[in-house]
């Protein structure tokens, strides 16, 4: 545990990010995910249109992509390498999710929320070369998962 804290401190130092108070709690073992009031930094995708109801065809396509590109690190209902994503659409706006998939490095370097998460998980999410259409389908799949977990 001591090592994780040291490492987290190092990461914070190196990045200079995560301006939120709760970050330290995160490092000490509690999810930093709750601390998400910071200003978002979206560069690639500024706005995502989402319909009130989930498109089942898109969600199915998204599930297939999720299986191949995401499940090595994310489960829906428990923490794995990265955070559980079953309720991510309840925590984050669609723009955040799209940018995290498509513009991963920029988000890691600039987005306050992501920098705080990094202190908990200590792994930079890899860019998995997903194209915009597939990313949108993944978002739809995550919306469906979110609806099922309301």
């Amino acid at each position, binding site marked *: 545990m001591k090592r994780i804290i040291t490492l987290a401190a190092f990461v914070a130092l190196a990045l200079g990010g995560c301006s939120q108070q709760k970050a330290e709690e995160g490092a000490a073992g509690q999810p930093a995910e709750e601390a998400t009031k910071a200003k978002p930094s979206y560069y690639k995708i500024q706005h995502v249109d989402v319909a009130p109801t989930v498109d089942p065809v898109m969600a199915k396509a998204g599930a297939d992509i999720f299986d*191949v590109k995401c*499940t*090595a690190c994310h489960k829906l209902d428990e923490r794995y390498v990265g955070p559980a994503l079953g309720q991510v659409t309840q925590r984050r706006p669609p723009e955040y999710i799209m940018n995290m998939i498509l513009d991963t490095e920029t988000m890691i370097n600039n987005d306050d929320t992501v920098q705080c998460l990094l202190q908990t998980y200590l792994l930079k999410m890899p860019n998995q070369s997903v194209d915009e259409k597939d990313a949108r389908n993944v978002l739809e799949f995550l919306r469906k998962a979110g609806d099922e977990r309301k």
Partner: protein
Amino acid sequence: MKRIRSLTAAMALSLFALIISGCSEGDKAHIGAAGDAAARVYVAPGKYDEFYNFVSGGFSGQLAVYGLPSGRLFRVIPVFSVDPEKGWGFSEETKPMLNTSHGFIPWDDFHHPELSMSDGSPDGKWIFGNANNTPRVARIDLSDMRTKEIIELPNSSGNHSSPFTTENSEYVVAGTRFSLPVPNQDVSIASYKENFKGTISFIKVDKTTGAMDLSFQILVPGFDYDLAHAGKGPSHDWMFFSCYNSEQANTMLEANASQNDKDFIAAINWKKCEEYVAQGKGKKIDAKYAHNVFNDKTQMASSEIKNGVTILTPAECPGIIYYMPTPKSPHGCDVDPSGELIVGGGKLATVIPVMSYSKMIASIEAKKFDKEIDGIPVLNYKDCLAGEVKKPGLGPLHTEFDGKGNAYTSMFVSSEIVKWSLKDFKVLDRAPTYYSIGHLCIPGGDSKKPWGKYVIAYNKITKDRFLPTGPELTQSAQLYDISGEKMKLLLDFPTIGEPHYAQALPAELIQSKQVKVFQLKDNNHPYVTRSEKDCRVERKGNEVHIYATAIRSHFKPDNIEGVKVGDVVYWHITNLEQDWDVPHGFAVIGNNNSELLIMPGETLTLKWEPKYPGIHPFYCTDFCSALHQEMQGYVRVSAAGSNAPLTHN
């Protein structure tokens, strides 16, 4: 002591200069580097070099990739020798690449890289390389800097005059330095003159895919075919080969092959050869050779043993080959950017002979032949001569061109580069090299349009130039600025193995084409695992196939039980990453094999035969993330014949 030694060296050097240049007063300024050299080779952190420099590794069997002007080493591309670091020749996917008609060979001697050409200029598609010992030609893809194809050459040995390409890389050529009975057979070595022949091979290259095919071989007298370069422009249809040992000696060649005053440059009209082959004038003979191809789609190599090659005999195919007499035991054979001048590096000659293509053609048309050797007309030296560079130095070897009317010849014995004019063949400048230069290279310096900014010397001996490392010292490259009238030494840098020839081209020709990751969706490896949910372990008799994945920072599965002593275990590991520069490594305890180094989107297979029951850890060998140290797993190995069921998580 050190000072005494360098003083002696300096004295010896000035003595040399005195002897050679007939008193050009051993210019002290040339001994060290130019005053602003540091600034001129400095590439600031994070900035890129201007040129890629591909340097043969010689007896390392590999190809090194440097940046110029910095001399920084970026990559060693495994070609003819195994490389445990990259799993080359150790992974199941790459083992077939090193197969030959003699079986698997883990080493060879790589002398000459040659960039593929379009209209006589490097096009940045491929680079070819020769194996000197067990004759082969390799093709390396410049978009991912990996060896994609290796073709063996039957009826050949000492594959030295290779792999030079024609003006549009229609063909890659290869000639025998060591002649042999063709086909090879059990005869007395003393019957050399009667039984030994040389062959010149032409390998067709597919314009789009680069795929190589052994098109035909020309059966030639048993001389030593040493180096080659293609014609260009007016001489497009021709290929030129230097050869020595016209004495056909089979012992103590250093004396016995140095008798004749002149040997030859063989001029071969490959267009004419094509016509004869098309007319069925070639004779098909049995000849076994391996042809190894790496398939990008399946990420697997395969090796096929082929049989049969078409042979053209000069006596039956008039007009395909002529000998131009050339003094004396020529080594280099270099064609100037215009395609008119052919420079022979007569390593024992006192001049550098420059032959004229147009005069050669005029002689051929006028049928002015001195004699014939085995049906090959021998032209007259003077009739074909454009001019001679007088008193160039000692031991001229190779010549490159700057595209501004100048030639640069390496002088092995007198350790220098000599710059001379293509107009009047007068020596313009000379610069010492440290020491014993072999090849030299100007970016595009053997092409139609050289980028004549630098010349690089590749030296055999470094003696006192670097910190000593026991009896075996590094060999070196030296970078000279040739933008002005005088050559200026800028930098020494060490090289891998023994550098022979090298090629260089502007970075922008290939930099933007670099493959960053292999697309998982295009990975058609028969043992690919595209998703963690597909990970599995299967038994087929005593074979165990582990379908595993790697992503920052875990393997899946990472606990496997039920493997038994006597099993042959194949780890098929797919790197699920799709981001640049995120390889994962793999190694398992006690494996009599190398590691795997798996690029994003790639699948590689490691064979493992555990010997003892017990727990066998495995781990990632490439520091992949902050949790890299956690990237580990266990295999439980049970005794042979145990009933342990195969399980995994």
